[in-house]
């Protein structure tokens, strides 16, 4: 008898809270759950981001007093020939990190879109290996592969093409594509796994319908497989483009931007400007430009392919 009202009020309070229409103390206390994480996030991500933007408008060597520079640093990033060339190298890297792996991934689904794959887990595990290795380890492995006495030159010798052999990462003509190929190696497995997984989600009826309509393998690929993979392609593009534009670790650990400036990338320029030559304002402006570039390109990819998927 005495417990009944208590149960009722608890239930009543509970129901009210569950409906959560009440903006009282209990609800504002819910923000406490966000505090620890957001304190760290604000201190070590948001605040530094704002400060980078601020630095980019100053002329500063990191020690003496900074002077207002307006947009001078941005003008320098856009007009300086070395800085421009680094962004050019990024475009080359997009070819190697994004375009080639995507094509390789699409080739595999074009060949076997409706075949049951045997040992799929084994293939996935192995193809994913490059994704989990530290970039420094990858760089060490590929330095050996590209070395003067490494396996590539050994194969060339075997084919009596020894005249072509060289130190691939040390040659002005080949350093940039050689570094790019490391990126292709890192990314193609990811694309294959993503696309093979995506194809299996395309309803079999679509393929049957295409066949009844007399579609050959080529038309089938373009009218069923490719549209069905839109989501996966968009993910692959976003991931690989981001990695191509942020390529610092591999360059630092293979060529250090050389020979000359032939493999220099924006991230490297930012590092050097900030911590070696101490042109902090310029480095900050370059990082803002790089960040905006990543945001704009990945945003455009997502928008294009997602809106296409709604049609």
């Amino acid at each position, binding site marked *: 008898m005495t417990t009944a009202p208590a149960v009722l009020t608890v239930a009543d309070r509970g129901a009210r809270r569950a409906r959560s229409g009440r903006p009282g103390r209990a609800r504002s206390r*819910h923000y406490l759950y966000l505090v620890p994480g957001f304190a760290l996030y604000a201190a070590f991500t948001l605040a530094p981001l704002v*400060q*980078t933007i601020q630095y980019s408008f100053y002329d500063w060597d990191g020690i003496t007093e900074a002077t207002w520079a307006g947009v001078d640093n941005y003008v320098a990033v856009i007009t300086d020939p070395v800085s421009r060339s680094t962004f050019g190298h990024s475009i080359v890297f997009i070819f190697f990190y994004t375009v080639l792996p995507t094509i390789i991934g699409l080739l595999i689904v074009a060949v076997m879109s409706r075949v049951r794959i045997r040992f799929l887990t084994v293939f996935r595990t192995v193809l994913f290996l490059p994704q989990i290795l530290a970039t420094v*380890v990858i760089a060490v492995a590929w330095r050996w592969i590209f070395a003067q006495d490494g396996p590539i030159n050994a194969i060339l010798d075997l084919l009596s093409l020894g005249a072509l052999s060289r130190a691939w990462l040390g040659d002005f003509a080949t350093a940039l594509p050689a570094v790019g190929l490391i990126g292709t190696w890192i990314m*193609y497995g990811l694309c294959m796994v993503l696309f093979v997984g995506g194809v299996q989600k395309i309803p079999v009826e679509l393929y049957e319908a295409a066949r009844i309509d007399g579609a050959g393998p080529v038309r089938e690929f373009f009218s069923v497989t490719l549209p069905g993979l839109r989501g996966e392609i968009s993910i692959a593009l976003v991931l690989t483009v981001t990695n191509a534009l942020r390529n610092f670790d591999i360059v630092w650990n293979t060529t250090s931007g050389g020979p000359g400036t032939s493999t220099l990338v924006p991230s490297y320029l*930012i*590092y050097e400007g900030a911590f070696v030559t101490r042109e902090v304002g310029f480095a900050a402006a370059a990082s803002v430009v790089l*960040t905006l570039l990543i945001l704009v390109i990945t945003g455009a990819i997502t928008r294009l392919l997602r809106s296409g998927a709604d049609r």
Partner: protein
Amino acid sequence: MKASLKESIAGHAFLIAGAVIALYPFLSIMAQALSPAPGSTASGPTLENFESAWTRGGFSLSLFSSAFVALAVVAVTGFVAALAGYALSVLKVRWRGLIMAVLLIGLVLPSEARIIPLYDMMSSLGLLNTYWALILPQIASSFSLATFWMANYFGALPSSLAEASSLDGANSWQTLRHVYAPLGMSALATLSCLVFLYTWNEFMLALVLMPDDASVQTAPLSLSFFAGNERNTEPEVIAAAAVLVALPVVIAYAFLQRRFMSGLLEGAVKE
């Protein structure tokens, strides 16, 4: 039927080629690491290079540093992200959209955008070349992905769970502690694999924020310095060092590959 068989053979051949190429670089440094270095008396495969790398490169210290930093980041990130994800998806705090938008910034932001002020900050706090210099920023870099991850997971659970729990008189903390946290353990485990991997492999932050003190440097950074010193170090020993740095992650991957893979793929989807 015949076309399908041909397709199957061609496709599998393609996959095998892809798998061999994916494996080759790691296997080749493995083979190089096991082969005797110049001046060695060993005639077959040998572990000498590993010993040599271990002592000369100080990898016992740097592997410990990496493990310590990564575990600290995983533990703190998992905890604060579970709290935040719970507040966003179950408690549905107000201004949720705005909070998520702010979090989204962290999901796409490259390290380059915050590395310069981070260096100044750590330098003025006297934290350069300490574990803190790496742990704090890396918690902040993983926080966005981790929070979205936990929010998605908690949000997909039936809302009747929270209602039933509050009908029983539990407050929001008790509901998290006794209902959501136990259910979220599997999601948290996959997330931990992902954060561990990112933290273990991080290079640029380590390079900038712990440049001078070898006793706190992480394994990838030590490897980079060790391998950069090619004139004094045999390639076989460098290869052994690379295998030492890769091995903890490769072993973890071998045992937890499903978690790693689903983590990487779903993490990608969220980006």
